[in-house]
């Protein structure tokens, strides 16, 4: 087992290095100048601009810059933002809690709702519940999150005035009213994301359960006289959940990606919003850092999924 994890880790490291190289190369080879924000300002004389370029090391060929970037990354230094002149690490640390509070909670709710829905759907196949749940799941992953978000804003923030439609990140939670305020402003973004996550995972859980229900071991369990509840929960569910767990792990990076849109709709100052703003400002250090974080998340959760699969399913041989 230990060797299997080690081997997967050894594959993951070169993958991350290659991806960081690709990300850096795309940014370096792009025709857009990272200093265009300065370049557009006529008050900056050309000599000063050349000086800034030189100081920032932009005159070096890009493979050299890549090596410099990676070596400072290895020391935990992500560089300094062109726009706000603060350290990229600090910016990300500032934004991450907002993203996690929305995305993390939404994903948790999604998983907690999806598994029972998928299970009941499969056990009562073709019942009214199943029809409603499958249709809901289908609608849930066909409707773009930006459209659900806008609909929620129109209905609940503008018509009914139940929730604020702009997320206030300066809110300090120190008592019950401020906590309620936080809950109120989080409900809409969380609903949007949770709807999508629930739909995807519920559909998958249902399909997995349906694969397992007609198998021989289920008949054996029933013929031993076990209660239906025990058969479903202890035998079928546990086996069906193995691939679901993998899906949940693999979905984590995609969820962060999806948060870019949700954060944009509700103006949540999270990491996705930081990325979109940085792209708009041509703030290369921030963009590269966030892209790299996303890439590391993908590789990391691929690894987690593989390892979980091996731990949960003893039939998988890890050679």
């Amino acid at each position, binding site marked *: 087992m230990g060797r299997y994890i080690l081997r997967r880790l050894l594959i993951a490291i070169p*993958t991350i290095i*290659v*991806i960081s190289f*690709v*990300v850096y190369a*795309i*940014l370096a080879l*792009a*025709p*857009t100048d990272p200093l265009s924000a300065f370049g557009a300002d006529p008050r900056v004389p050309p000599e000063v601009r050349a000086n800034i370029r030189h100081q920032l090391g932009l005159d070096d060929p890009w493979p050299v810059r890549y090596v410099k970037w990676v070596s400072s990354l290895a020391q935990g230094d992500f560089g300094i933002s062109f726009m706000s002149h603060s350290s990229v690490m600090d910016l990300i640390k500032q934004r991450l809690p907002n993203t996690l509070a929305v995305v993390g909670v939404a994903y948790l709710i999604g998983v907690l709702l999806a598994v029972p829905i998928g299970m009941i759907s499969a056990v009562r196949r073709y019942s009214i519940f199943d029809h409603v749940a499958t249709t809901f799941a*289908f*609608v849930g*992953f*066909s*409707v*773009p999150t*930006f*459209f659900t978000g*806008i*609909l929620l*804003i*129109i209905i609940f923030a*503008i018509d009914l005035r139940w929730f604020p*439609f702009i997320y206030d990140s300066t809110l300090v939670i120190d008592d019950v009213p401020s906590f309620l305020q936080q809950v109120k402003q989080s409900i809409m973004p969380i609903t949007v994301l949770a709807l999508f996550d629930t739909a995807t995972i519920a559909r998958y859980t249902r399909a997995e359960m349906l694969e397992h229900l007609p198998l021989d071991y289920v008949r054996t369990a029933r013929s031993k006289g076990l209660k239906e509840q025990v058969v479903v929960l202890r035998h079928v569910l546990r086996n069906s959940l193995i691939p679901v767990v993998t899906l949940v792990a693999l979905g984590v*990076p995609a969820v962060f*990606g*999806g948060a*870019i*849109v949700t954060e*944009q*709709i509700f103006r949540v100052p999270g990491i996705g919003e930081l*990325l*979109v703003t940085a*792209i*708009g400002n041509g703030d290369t250090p921030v*963009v590269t850092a*966030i*892209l790299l974080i*996303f*890439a590391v*998340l*993908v*590789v990391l959760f*691929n690894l987690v999924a593989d390892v979980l699969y091996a731990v949960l399913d003893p039939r998988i041989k890890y050679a």
Partner: protein
Amino acid sequence: MTKGGVLAATFTRPPRSLWKDAWWQFRRHRLAMIALGTLTFLIVFVLVGPLVYHTPLDTIDFLQSLKGPSADHPLGTDDLGRDLLARIMFGGRISIAVGITAVLLAISLGTTIGALAGFFGRLDNPLMRITDLFLSLPILPLLLVIIYLFRDSLRSAFGPELGIFLMIVGVIGILNWMPVARLVRASFLSLKQKEFVEAARSIGARDRRIIVRHILPNVLSPVLVAATIGVGGAILTESTLSFLGLGFPPDVPTWGRILFDARNYLDIAPHWAIFPGLCIFLTVLSINFIGDGLRDALDPRKTS
């Protein structure tokens, strides 16, 4: 009439091809049929609509700005008083064209790579490593960055509309071929061991002919299902990009772009956001249902 003729008339039925069979199965999937109807309606709406409905899409009229649906403007107007129905019809053409073209690109790339990896053992490992690498890329953030960086140079090379169109189709295609490649590879791995491939080889068929004429047709149905669902995904991606302000320029009103422009006026002009959003939603939902119906129809295990 002879006895033999009567018998033949009684026992022969018109031959049923795979596709006729599939269609017969598909028709029994009620939701997929409704979806097919909806999608046909939407396509006719965006293709034929502008021929019948002559209101120009870019006439600015501030007296009419942000008006809800009326007789003059059936779906209302935007902040510059431009007619939304005309804009939505025009935008739909682009959104759907982007979806189909991007998927054609992704499918051709994926099928080629999957076929090569599955058929030629020595290409398998390197090609699958590349596939895994592409699967590890953070797709949405990368799309945003690439579009931002290369937008201006492509715009000057091909003009504002074609340049952006080519770029969006290109990046969506290049970042979405991996699932198809895996699917095709898996099918090729099992199919190339089959007797019919051996038979083809024994009569002297070359690799190229075996791949294209013998194995590929057997892989077609899962690829078709993946392609159908892929079109929905590509339309979603395009509208997401436009919604983030990084897709088509403001003068090209794709559905996502209209939504992006509308989002600051949700309180006074909700119709502006609701109609294009509904179009995206209905298109993607019908495509997904059709894909689901196709999957059932083309799955030989489910044929009753």
